[in-house]
């Protein structure tokens, strides 16, 4: 059962991701990306990580893609201009294949070592994903959590200052 869902959703993730690249219309492209995020969220669910799944939907499919589509609409990009096949594209395809082969080598050639960390499926099934996650977040990872808040503050301050019109 899980394997079937995994195969279907994994396949759909790949297909929709490809459609993101190949869709000619920018809005369609963005919508395929939303779809791909959705299927990815299902994959997270299969890993018992429901919190990450819903964050994937709220943050990526919801907020970030909403901003992207908003920007596309503001710029009124309807149809991408058809550019001829350029050298850069060939280079891109070659680089892509090399990276893909590299991944294959890493994944298949030596085999993943499958080392289990402290957070296992059993633990999450027992206490629920959120309890386990929050427990780690506020104990072992409290300092990175705080540092992340500094990072986000810096990001917000930076975004505001760059976007601010000349008010002086």
């Amino acid at each position, binding site marked *: 059962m899980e394997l079937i869902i995994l195969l279907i959703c994994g396949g759909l993730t790949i297909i929709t991701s490809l459609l993101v690249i190949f869709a000619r219309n920018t809005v369609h492209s963005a919508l395929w990306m939303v779809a791909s995020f959705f299927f990815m969220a299902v994959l997270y669910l299969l890993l018992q990580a429901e919190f990450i799944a819903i964050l994937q939907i709220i943050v990526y499919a919801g907020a970030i893609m909403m901003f992207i589509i908003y920007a596309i*609409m503001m710029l009124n990009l309807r149809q991408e201009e058809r550019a001829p096949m350029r050298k850069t594209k060939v280079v891109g395809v070659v680089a892509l294949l090399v990276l893909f082969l590299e991944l294959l080598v890493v994944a298949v050639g030596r085999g993943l070592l499958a080392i289990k960390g402290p957070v296992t499926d059993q633990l999450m099934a027992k206490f629920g994903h959120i309890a386990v996650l929050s427990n780690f977040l506020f104990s072992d990872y409290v300092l990175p959590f705080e540092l992340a808040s500094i990072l986000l503050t810096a990001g917000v301050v930076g975004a505001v200052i760059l976007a601010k019109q000349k008010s002086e």
Partner: protein
Amino acid sequence: MIEFWTILIIKTLVAFAVSMLIVAYSTWIERKVLGHVQLRYGPMRVGFHGLLQPIADGVKGFFKEELIPDNADKPVFLLAPIISIGAAITLVVVIPFGDTVTIMGHKIPLYLADLDIGILFVLGISTIGSYGGMLGGWSSGNKYGVIGGLRASAQMISYELPMALAVISVVMVSGTLSLVGIVENQAGLWNVVKQPLAFFLFIICGLAEINRTPFDMPEAEAELACGFNVEYSSMKFALFFMAEYCHMFVFAAMVTTLFLGGWYGPLLPGPVWFFIKTFAIIFFCVWERSTFPRYRYDQVMELGWKVLLPAGLLNILLTGLWMLVFNI
């Protein structure tokens, strides 16, 4: 196993039917209440005091001519209402209508799913729902539609944050994200007493999220000729319409669940209390629509970012301090 699935399917069907019925009759409530506020009767012809009007409207929706504008983006144009209604109905899944009841020896909880992430699910899916309006406006290739769509998305982004902040403080006092857990936590004292500011914020942001007056920017009739759904007709328009009322129902149910103690109440059985409270909120939504004028667009943005967002943060801070001092 079979029994489990049977119960699940029956429950799904019942929940679906009930919410559709509520959606249909919310439109009736809206028209009647608006009518009476404005010293007129509202619909009177079909059925007793217009009681069958929603059904007549539905039938009418099916038989009207389907129009797709020439320069519309067809797939997206078709998809938009589906996203809108799909997301709205999905939300019904997590609403806890009542506690566990025993029917014919089976213990049946009166909710479809008690998710660990319940409230986040609501926030997430309602975000997706607002894609409907945005895409509908854009794909129709009408400038009013596009402006409506842009307004919808901007408003959604601005009000989602304070709404989430209001929810966070509720989660803080409840200690759980599960909606059932949040209701059970209010057995003694309702959250509206514990979290008055959050209640206030949630109501305001909720009205903005479901595009009700005074925040109905995306479909401001006077300026945008109906906004994002200007080019929609027949059933597709009806789907948008239904999605809007379904969202209103879910919003009312969420206020009930998060702040008004869900199914708890004296004497009457749980689900009855739940619906009484929910309909009170729905009535409130209609009432305020007939009383408040619409905000100007920049005022909407300013309110969201400069007032509600800091207020939400302040509320979290106060809640945290409260919990620290009284060691809850």
